[in-house]
């Protein structure tokens, strides 16, 4: 029972982990991108579309990643090169991305004459199966090593992002750009390039989360109205919860995932809590985290100081 619950929590947390890792990349380089929801939506459509036509998981993920990079490129051009307001640009990207996904989603539905369904062969390629040997470990095997491949991908990406951020030269440059672009610039870091690279990477990773939603959660059928449904915004919340650290986001996504499936596992006759509060919990907890971290006034684990402000070298 508990294993089943945690297993479901991991599954539910995975798209969030993608979204959060992606958004952390962007925010750590100083750009808060509120377009996560839109980028995920575009990734959801593109991933499904490619899977539907090619039947290849690799191509589906690649396509999703590419559309995420494209969406983030719009954001990057506007905020980095044209120095547009980050909040407004991000919100616009959400409107635009949602529109694009729904528009082409509907086109796909009308062309296929009904609801487009992924092939059995493809569904098999993303099914949950135990990893040989590791999957046979009692309890842990089921819990950790019997997932669909995208779950592992999300964890690997989060770990790579963390190592990159904290242990490499480029990661250091990126953190510096996010904290104080003026100082990074004076030290010879190409601020524009660093921002572009990380916003684009972040967008691609976010879009993978969208692909997860349409490929795995959708059960192989395209559902135009409720694919992403706020998961992008929860990812933004999770960034705060994870204090801008993708490794912590692995744990955080588990917690958030757990809340979203908790209602199906709590024995209803013993604990009576309205369903709405389960889905509300991640946001309440995130708010509390936000308040507590501001009370501690810690510089570590809070939003990068340069986040939200565009950089212009010759500003006087």
């Amino acid at each position, binding site marked *: 029972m508990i294993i089943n619950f945690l297993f479901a929590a991991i599954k539910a947390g995975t798209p969030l982990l993608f979204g959060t890792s992606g958004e952390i990349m962007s925010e750590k380089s100083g750009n808060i991108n509120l377009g996560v929801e839109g980028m995920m939506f575009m990734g959801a459509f593109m991933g499904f579309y490619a899977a539907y036509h090619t039947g290849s998981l690799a191509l589906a993920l690649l396509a999703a990643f590419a559309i995420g990079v494209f969406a983030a490129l719009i954001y990057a051009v506007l905020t980095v090169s044209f120095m547009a307001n980050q909040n407004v640009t991000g919100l616009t990207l959400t409107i635009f991305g949602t529109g694009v996904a729904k528009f082409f989603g509907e086109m796909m539905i009308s062309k296929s004459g009904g609801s487009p369904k992924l092939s059995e062969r493809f569904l098999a390629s993303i099914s949950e199966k135990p990893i040989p040997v590791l999957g046979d470990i009692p309890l842990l095997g089921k819990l950790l090593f019997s997932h669909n491949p995208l779950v592992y991908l999300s964890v690997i990406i989060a770990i790579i992002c963390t190592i990159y951020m904290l242990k490499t030269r480029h990661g250091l440059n990126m953190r510096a750009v996010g904290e*104080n672009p003026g100082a990074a610039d004076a030290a010879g870091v190409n601020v524009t390039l660093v921002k572009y690279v990380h916003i684009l990477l972040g967008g691609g990773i976010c879009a993978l989360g969208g692909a997860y939603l349409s490929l795995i959660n959708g059960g192989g059928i395209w559902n135009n109205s409720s694919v992403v449904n706020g998961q992008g915004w929860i990812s933004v919340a999770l960034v705060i919860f994870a204090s801008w650290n993708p490794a912590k986001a692995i744990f955080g996504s588990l917690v958030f995932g757990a809340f979203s499936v908790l209602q199906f596992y709590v024995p209803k006759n013993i604990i009576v809590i309205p369903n709405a509060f389960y889905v509300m919990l991640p946001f309440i907890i995130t708010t509390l985290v936000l308040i507590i971290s501001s009370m501690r006034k810690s*510089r570590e684990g809070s939003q990068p100081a340069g986040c939200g402000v565009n950089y212009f070298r010759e500003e006087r």
Partner: protein
Amino acid sequence: MEQINHETMAIELKQITKTFGSVVANNKIDLSVKQGEILALLGENGSGKTTLMNMLSGIYRPDSGSIFINGAPVTINSPEDSIRLGVGMIHQHFKLVEALTATDNILLGSREKGIFLHKKRSEKIREISERFGLEVDPEKKIYQMSVSEKQTVEILKVLYRKADILILDEPTAVLTPQETTRLFEILRRMKQEGCAVIIITHKLNEVLEISDRVTILRKGESVATVTTAETNARELTELMVGRPVELAIHHLKTDFHENLLEVHHLSVADEEGFETLKDVSFDLNRGEILGVAGVAGSGQKELCEAIAGLLPLKKGAILYHNEDLAGKSPNEIIKMGISMSFIPEDRLGMGLAASMGMVDNMLLKKYNEGKGPFVSKKKARELAKKLVKQLDIVTPSVDTPVRRLSGGNVQKVLLGREIESEPNVLITAYAVRGLDINSSYTIYDLLNEQKKKGVGVLFIGEDLDVMLELCDRIMVLCHGKITGIVNAKEVTKEELGLLMTDASGKGGDAHEV
């Protein structure tokens, strides 16, 4: 002169021009520095020194003109280019990432090989700092550092990259005399190793002490380059200002003998509980200018803000005619009928609302006057127009955002407004910082006028020469404590310097004078 031809020019700037909008910051400037030479770049505030150097460091790009480094023509499009050419600049406002350690700040943007940061990278930095006799903890985060520590990190950053052209923008402004001496030792050492050094400053004694040659800028143009050994302070000042200057500041005698403000055992703590002011006691008389001297960050800002009611006090009393102002907000102080004016250091960020015009700024402390919910701007407009006439404020209109005015005019708007409120106590923090000499003297005159009227002036200053002339008494702060209150007529600059660093040797403990 023949000698120069045989030596390699480390830097040559030819006919450099840079404009910002309609303002010409640099107009056809020529400048050169040899290897193994220290050049002082001297000029008043706003003469274009920093702008010119920022074109070497890649922050700005010239509109026209050419740059040669070690004899070869170069284009510097970014700080990256500049670093590659061996130029290292230490900016007046440090370019450090507060959330990172000293080590990571130094390694930032380096072109070394390898993807990963070294685990023991701090050791390497420690070695270098020891080799140059610099003290800094490589693992300390910048936001936990003092100003001089931060400057050390900036110097290390340049040394680490083996820059052979070093530019320092007003490096001594934040240092004690001892730290300045240490810095100069390092600069001389770099000079011996063949580096070219440019030091931006407006302190004449430092120019004469450290430099080989001096290039003087005035209003964005290069007016002269002289050999330091062949010049003197008077000549340099004349070149800088463009005319012979009467350096003496008029000292006014008044006869009031009345105590106005008494501060008793005042202590202020910052958010982390660190005491920025410790047990400060003094009094201010009518018709006197009381100077406050000290190294930057010794508690001057806190002292002003505490008296003005902008900071909560930890303990102590501030008596104005025996009424205690401690714990009162500015609003309450105004309501008590006490007319106190404060000219803060941060003029546009505290004394004025930068995007508002003069009219709206006149309202700042008076908007609440009058009944009803609406703001009345009539009187403010009249006042603004009056100030423009009286103080020769240069502005397109009284509704132009004040941030678009020059530094001197901004200060006139601020000071003008405060003086118009007819204060009994006037607190000024760095009243002439960033102003040219003409504007500075206008400000001194205005202060003397107030003194004549019987106003008590608390003058937070940085130029000791000015303070010795202008003030009646000088109070010296060090680490938030008063290390002495002395009569300006009976003290020398050197004595003040010793008080500023608290050479009594008791590690910052105050001693009564």
